[in-house]
C-alpha cells in the first residue's frame, strides 16, 4: 500500500491514499459541492469523494446550526444530509454516505445561510437555553395564533430541512410484487452464507442488499477469507449465486419493513445512481416480497460516544473510518486519535497506520491490561492511554485537537484532525421489531438483540449479536439451510471460507461525562440529527420524563429521519443512569417501518395524475368523444356530461336543448354504468323478496318492477328495476355508485344468511351496453332498430315490459320499457362490443325524428323534473318513509331492514320527507345542500327543518326546481319556506310542491 505522500492522485484528491476495493480509479467523475468543482471515481459515494478532498464539513445541524461533518459510511448517517441534483430532480435530505457519485452530480449543503462556512444562525448556539429539551412545548406556548404566523415560519427558516423541488417530479416510479421461499436481507458474511446455503438447496431465494455492492463489512474491513482479501470471496460467492437459477440478488434494494404474513416492503433505487433514468426506466421501484422464510442478516450499527463537542467535523465512527480506508482508499485525516471501548475499534489504528496516517493517540476506556490496545499502539507507534477518556474536542469547522483525560485524571492536549470513536456495535434489529416484539438487552455485548421474532424470521450474524466473522458465516449458512429445508429443499451445507479470528472485548462506554446532567460547558450530543444533548436528557429526566416513550417525545430524540439509529442506545443508557435503573429496566422504544426514508413518489408508484385511479369507459365513450362530448367522472366511470353543439354559448344552453329534445322528440343516453346483476335459480324470486322491500313472486316473465333495498338498520340502501326474463331468470339493475356494493350484499345474504337457497349471481355490468332511448318519438325510432317480428305497440309492449329481442337483423338484444325521465322510454341492451354501433345506428335512424344524445346533466334534470330519487336522495340517512315509499314495505314477508325500519323514529311524520320546491321567483337559484327554514326564522340549527338534495334549472317548468326533505313534508304542500344557502349568502323563498313536476298522472309514461 502506498502512503499519502507517494500516491499519484494526491494532487487532485489529496486524501485518496490507497486503492479501495470498490473504487475504479482508472476513471474520473466530476461533481460539484456548493458550486466547488471536485472529482471522484466510479464506486465512490458523495461522502467518500468529499473526504478524498479532505472535506469534512458537509452541513449545519438542525437546531443549533453547528458545523457538521460525515459521521458514518452508511444509511445510518445523521449529519451529512445534502440536496442532490437540480431543478425538478432536486432532492433534499439525501445522505451523502449512500449517494453514489455520478458524473455531473450537483450537491449542496443544507441548513446554512448565507454560506456553509459562515452561518448567521449559528448563534442559535447562544440561544441553546431556549432550544433545550421540550422547547417545542415550553417556548411556543402562547398565543396559539402565533404558531402559524410567527413561530413556525421562523423555525422553518432557522431549522432548515432542505428544499424540495418546485416542479413536478419528471421521473416515474413502479410497484411490483414477487414471491420467494427464502428472503435474505443483507449480504455481509452471514447473509451471503445464508443465500448460498438456501440457494444450493434449490429454494427460490431473493437476496436484498441496500448497498450498491454486496459484501457488507467484508468490504469495509482489512481482512482475509481463505487467505485472500475478503472482497475476493464476496465476488466468488456472488458468482456462485448468479449461477443458481432460483436465486435473485437485488442490490440497491432496502428491505424497509416487515409486515404481516411474511410480507416485506423493499425499496429498489433503480436509477438513483444515474444523472437521469434511462429511457423507460423507473427511478425507484417499490417491491412487496412475500417470503415463506426470512433470514435477517442486516449487520450492526456502530455507536458514537457522548462527550463534549463530539459533533465536530472530523469526529467519525471508527468503523466508518475503516470503510473509507479499505473500500474507498480514502484517509479521512492525517493525524488520528482513536477512542474506543473495544478491540474492534483498535483495528482502525492499524488500518490508518497501514495507509500512512499518523495515529496520534489511542484512547481506550478500558483499564490497563484489558484488550489489545497496548499491542496495537506499539505496532502503530502511537501513544496509548488506557482507562482514559476524551474530555473535549477543539476546532469549530474541523477537529484541531482533543483533550484526553488519562486514568489518573491528567489532561493531555493532542493535536489531530480526525477522531475515530467506537462505543461498540448495536445489532440492526429494526426488521425484527416492526410487529411489536421488544428486543432484549445483553450486558455482555452492551447491546439490544432480537427477542421474539415474526413468524418465519430468523436473525443471524451481527444483527443477532454475533460479531465474529467465522461464527457469522457458519450461523448464516445454517440458517439458510434450515430455511430452505422448512420450504422442502434439503441439501448439505456449503463450504465456507476460513476467517481470521477477531476479539471484541467490549466494556460499556456510552459517555465520557462526569455526570449526564452536569455537562454544562460544551455540548455533548446524543442525537446528532435532532440536536439532542446529554444535558437535554438530564433535564428531561429532572422534569420527570423518565419513561423512555416520554423522553423520546419530549426531547425529540430518535424522531428525525435517521430514526435515531446511532443515538437510541446511548440515550437509553444515559436515561438509565440519571434515573438509576439498568438499561434493561429502562426499556426501549419500538421501531416502526420504514427503516429508511421512502419517497412518497415510490409509495404512489404509477398512481399519480390521471393514473391516480383506474378509469372505466362506457362502450360509447369513443363515439361520444368523436361527438365532442364533455365528460364527468362518476365514480371510476367517465360519462358524457353533455354534447355541445356549434353556436351554443353555455353548458346550460346545451343541457336545456337536450332536455327539450327528450320531452319533445327523442334522445338517448348511455346508461351502461348502472349495475347489472344476472340472477338465476329456482329460489331467485324468493331471494328477491328477501332483499327488496316489495313483493316479487307475482312478477310475470317479461315484466320489470321497481325495487327498493334497505340496509339491515332500516335505512334506504339502493334502488333500481329488476326484470324477469325467464321462469328462474332475473336481471337486476343497481345504481352506478352501488353496483359493487349490491353485488357483495347479495352474495353476503346468500352465502351467510340463507345458504340453503338455490340461486346464483353474476355481474353483467360490463357485458351489456345499455342505452336509454327516451321521448315521445322513442317508439318510432326503436321500430327502425328492433327487428320487425317484435311488436312494440303499447298493447304488446307496455310500460315495464321486458324481453329478449333481436335488432339490426338478428343481433341479440334486450329491450326494457323503463323510464327515468317520465317520457315514453326504453332501455336497449346489446353486447358491449356493439354499444358504439348502436349509438351510431340510433343517430342514423333517429335523424328524421330529431334524435340527439344527452348526457348525465340532462339525465339529472329529467329525473328531478319527474321526482325520481337518486344518489342525493338515497344518501344513507333517508328511509323508505322519507322517500315517500313507506307503503312499499311488504308486511307479508321478511326482508333485509324489515324490523328496524319499523322503529318509531324512522317513521315519525315529523321526519323530513321528500318534497318538491319551486322558488316564488323563477330565476331565484336553488342549490343542493341549502337548508329549509320556516319563513322569517333565524338561520340556526334549532330552526332547521330540512335540506335540498337535488336542484336544477328546469327548461320544462321554466324555473329552478328542487327535490328536498322537509319536516312533515307531505302535509305542507303549498306552504312557502325559506331556502337558506350560507355558502352563497342567499335566502330564497320557495313553495313546497309535489316532487313530480312533469306529467304527474303518468300519461306520457304509459302512452
Amino acid at each position, binding site marked *: 500500500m502506498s502512503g499519502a505522500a507517494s500516491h499519484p492522485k494526491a494532487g487532485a484528491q489529496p486524501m485518496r491514499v490507497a486503492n479501495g476495493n470498490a473504487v475504479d480509479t482508472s476513471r474520473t467523475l466530476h461533481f460539484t459541492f456548493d458550486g466547488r468543482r471536485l472529482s471522484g471515481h466510479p464506486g465512490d459515494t458523495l461522502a467518500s469523494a468529499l473526504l478524498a478532498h479532505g472535506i469534512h464539513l458537509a452541513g449545519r445541524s438542525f437546531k443549533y446550526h453547528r458545523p457538521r461533518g460525515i459521521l458514518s459510511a452508511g444509511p445510518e448517517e445523521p449529519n451529512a444530509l445534502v440536496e442532490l441534483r437540480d431543478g425538478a430532480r432536486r432532492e433534499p435530505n439525501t445522505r451523502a454516505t449512500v449517494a453514489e457519485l455520478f458524473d455531473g452530480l450537483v450537491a449542496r449543503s443544507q441548513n446554512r445561510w448565507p454560506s456553509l462556512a459562515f452561518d448567521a444562525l449559528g448563534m442559535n448556539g447562544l440561544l441553546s437555553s431556549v432550544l433545550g429539551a421540550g422547547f417545542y412545548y415550553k417556548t411556543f406556548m402562547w398565543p396559539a395564533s402565533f404558531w402559524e404566523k410567527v413561530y413556525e415560519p421562523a423555525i422553518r427558516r432557522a431549522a432548515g430541512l432542505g428544499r424540495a423541488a418546485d416542479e413536478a417530479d419528471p421521473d416515474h416510479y413502479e410497484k411490483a*410484487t414477487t414471491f420467494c421461499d427464502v428472503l435474505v436481507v443483507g449480504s455481509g458474511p452471514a447473509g451471503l452464507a445464508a443465500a448460498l446455503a438456501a440457494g444450493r438447496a434449490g429454494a427460490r431465494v431473493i437476496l436484498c442488499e441496500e448497498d450498491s455492492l454486496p459484501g457488507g463489512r467484508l468490504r469495509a474491513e482489512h481482512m482475509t477469507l481463505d487467505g485472500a482479501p475478503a472482497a475476493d470471496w464476496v465476488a466468488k460467492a456472488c458468482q456462485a449465486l448468479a449461477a443458481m437459477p432460483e436465486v435473485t440478488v437485488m442490490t440497491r434494494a432496502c428491505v424497509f419493513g416487515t*409486515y*404481516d*404474513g*411474511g*410480507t416485506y416492503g423493499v425499496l429498489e433505487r433503480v436509477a438513483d445512481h444515474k444523472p437521469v433514468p434511462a429511457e423507460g426506466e423507473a427511478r425507484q421501484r417499490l417491491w*412487496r416480497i*412475500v417470503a415463506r422464510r426470512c433470514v435477517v442478516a442486516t449487520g450492526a450499527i456502530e455507536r458514537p460516544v457522548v462527550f463534549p463537542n463530539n459533533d465536530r467535523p472530523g469526529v467519525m465512527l471508527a468503523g466508518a473510518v475503516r470503510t473509507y480506508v479499505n473500500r474507498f482508499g480514502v484517509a479521512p485525516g492525517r493525524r488520528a486519535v482513536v477512542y474506543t471501548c473495544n478491540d474492534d475499534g483498535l483495528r482502525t489504528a492499524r488500518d490508518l497506520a497501514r495507509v500512512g496516517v499518523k495515529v496520534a493517540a489511542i484512547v481506550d476506556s478500558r483499564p490497563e491490561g484489558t484488550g489489545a490496545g497496548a499491542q496495537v499502539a506499539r505496532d502503530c507507534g502511537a501513544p496509548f492511554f488506557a482507562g482514559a477518556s476524551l474530555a473535549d474536542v477543539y476546532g469549530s469547522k474541523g477537529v484541531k485537537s482533543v483533550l484526553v483525560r488519562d486514568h489518573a485524571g491528567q489532561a493531555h492536549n493532542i493535536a489531530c484532525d480526525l477522531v475515530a470513536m467506537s462505543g461498540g456495535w448495536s445489532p440492526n434489529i429494526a426488521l425484527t421489531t416492526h*410487529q*411489536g416484539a421488544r428486543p432484549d438487552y445483553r450486558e455482555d455485548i452492551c447491546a439490544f438483540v432480537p427477542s421474539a421474532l415474526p*413468524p418465519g424470521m430468523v436473525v443471524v450474524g451481527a444483527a443477532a449479536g454475533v460479531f465474529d466473522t467465522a461464527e457469522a458465516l457458519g450461523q448464516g449458512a445454517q440458517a439458510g439451510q434450515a430455511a430452505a429445508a422448512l420450504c422442502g429443499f434439503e441439501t448439505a451445507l456449503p463450504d465456507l471460507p476460513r476467517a481470521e479470528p477477531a476479539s471484541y472485548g467490549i466494556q460499556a462506554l456510552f459517555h465520557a461525562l462526569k455526570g449526564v446532567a452536569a455537562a454544562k460547558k460544551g455540548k455533548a450530543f446524543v442525537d446528532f440529527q435532532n440536536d439532542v444533548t446529554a444535558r437535554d436528557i438530564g433535564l428531561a429526566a429532572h422534569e420527570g420524563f423518565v419513561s423512555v416513550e416520554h423522553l423520546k417525545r419530549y426531547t425529540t430524540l430518535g424522531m428525525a429521519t435517521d430514526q435515531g439509529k446511532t443515538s437510541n442506545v446511548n440515550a437509553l443508557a444515559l436515561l438509565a443512569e440519571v434515573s438509576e435503573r439498568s438499561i434493561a429496566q429502562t426499556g426501549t422504544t419500538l421501531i416502526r417501518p420504514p427503516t429508511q426514508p421512502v419517497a412518497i413518489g415510490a409509495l404512489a408508484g404509477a398512481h399519480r395524475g390521471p393514473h391516480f385511479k383506474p378509469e372505466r369507459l362506457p362502450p360509447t365513450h369513443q363515439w361520444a368523444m368523436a361527438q365532442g362530448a364533455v365528460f364527468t367522472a362518476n365514480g371510476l366511470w367517465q360519462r358524457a356530461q353533455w354534447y355541445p353543439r356549434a353556436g351554443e354559448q353555455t353548458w346550460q344552453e346545451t343541457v336545456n336543448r337536450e332536455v327539450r329534445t327528450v320531452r319533445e322528440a327523442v334522445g338517448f343516453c348511455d346508461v351502461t354504468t348502472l349495475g347489472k346483476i344476472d340472477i338465476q335459480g329456482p329460489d331467485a324470486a324468493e331471494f328477491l323478496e328477501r332483499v327488496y322491500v316489495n313483493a316479487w313472486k307475482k312478477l310475470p316473465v317479461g315484466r320489470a318492477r321497481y325495487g327498493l333495498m334497505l340496509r*339491515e*338498520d332500516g335505512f334506504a340502501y339502493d334502488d333500481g328495476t329488476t326484470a324477469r326474463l325467464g321462469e328462474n331468470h332475473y336481471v337486476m339493475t343497481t345504481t352506478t355508485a352501488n353496483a*359493487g356494493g349490491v*353485488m*357483495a350484499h347479495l*352474495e*353476503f345474504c*346468500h*352465502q*351467510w*344468511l340463507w*345458504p*340453503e337457497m338455490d340461486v346464483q349471481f353474476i355481474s353483467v355490468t360490463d357485458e351489456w351496453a345499455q342505452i336509454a332511448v327516451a321521448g315521445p318519438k322513442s317508439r318510432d325510432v326503436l321500430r327502425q332498430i328492433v327487428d320487425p317480428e317484435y311488436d312494440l305497440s303499447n298493447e304488446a309492449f307496455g310500460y315495464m315490459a321486458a324481453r329478449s329481442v333481436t335488432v339490426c337483423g338478428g343481433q341479440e338484444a334486450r329491450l326494457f320499457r323503463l323510464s327515468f325521465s317520465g317520457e315514453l322510454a326504453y332501455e336497449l341492451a346489446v353486447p358491449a362490443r356493439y354499444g358504439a354501433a348502436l349509438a351510431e345506428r340510433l343517430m342514423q335512424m333517429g335523424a328524421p325524428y330529431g334524435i340527439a344524445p344527452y348526457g348525465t346533466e340532462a339525465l339529472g334534470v329529467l329525473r328531478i323534473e319527474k321526482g325520481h330519487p337518486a344518489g342525493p336522495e338515497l344518501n344513507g340517512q333517508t328511509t323508505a318513509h322519507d322517500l315517500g315509499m313507506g307503503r312499499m314495505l311488504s308486511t307479508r314477508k*321478511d326482508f333485509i331492514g324489515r*324490523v*328496524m325500519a*319499523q*322503529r318509531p323514529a324512522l317513521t315519525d311524520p315529523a321526519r323530513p320527507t321528500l318534497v318538491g320546491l319551486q322558488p316564488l321567483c323563477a330565476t331565484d337559484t336553488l342549490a343542493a345542500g341549502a337548508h329549509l327554514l320556516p319563513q322569517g326564522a333565524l338561520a340556526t340549527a334549532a330552526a332547521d327543518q330540512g335540506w335540498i338534495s337535488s336542484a336544477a334549472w328546469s327548461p320544462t317548468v321554466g324555473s329552478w326546481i328542487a327535490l328536498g326533505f322537509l319536516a312533515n313534508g307531505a302535509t305542507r304542500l303549498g306552504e312557502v319556506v325559506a331556502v337558506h344557502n350560507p355558502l352563497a349568502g342567499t335566502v330564497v323563498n320557495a313553495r313546497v310542491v309535489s316532487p313530480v313536476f312533469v306529467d304527474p298522472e303518468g300519461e306520457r309514461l304509459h302512452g
Partner: protein
Amino acid sequence: MRLTCPFCGSRGLEEFTYRGDALVRRPAADTSLQTDAQAWTDYVYLRDNPAGLHSELWYHGVGCRSWLVVTRDTRTHRVDDVRAASAVAAERSGGAA
C-alpha cells in the same frame, strides 16, 4: 397481511374487504320489533372487539366472491383459520335453530 382463501389459496389483503364480527346472528324471520327489539339491536349495532382471537367475516371480492369466516388474532394478525362462510352457515343452520 395475507389470507388463504379455501378456493383461491394465499392472497394479498388488497383482494379482500372486511365486514366484521362473524358471531352476530340475524334474528329469525318471524321475529318483530315488538317482541325482539333487543335481539335486533344487538344484531345491527353490537360488535365484539376482543384483543385476541376473533371470528370475523371477510369478502374475497377481487377473487372468487366468497364470503369467508376468518379466525384472526387481533393483536398479532395471526390467521388461524379461514373457512367458506356458506359452509359455516350451513353447519350452523343444520345444528341450531
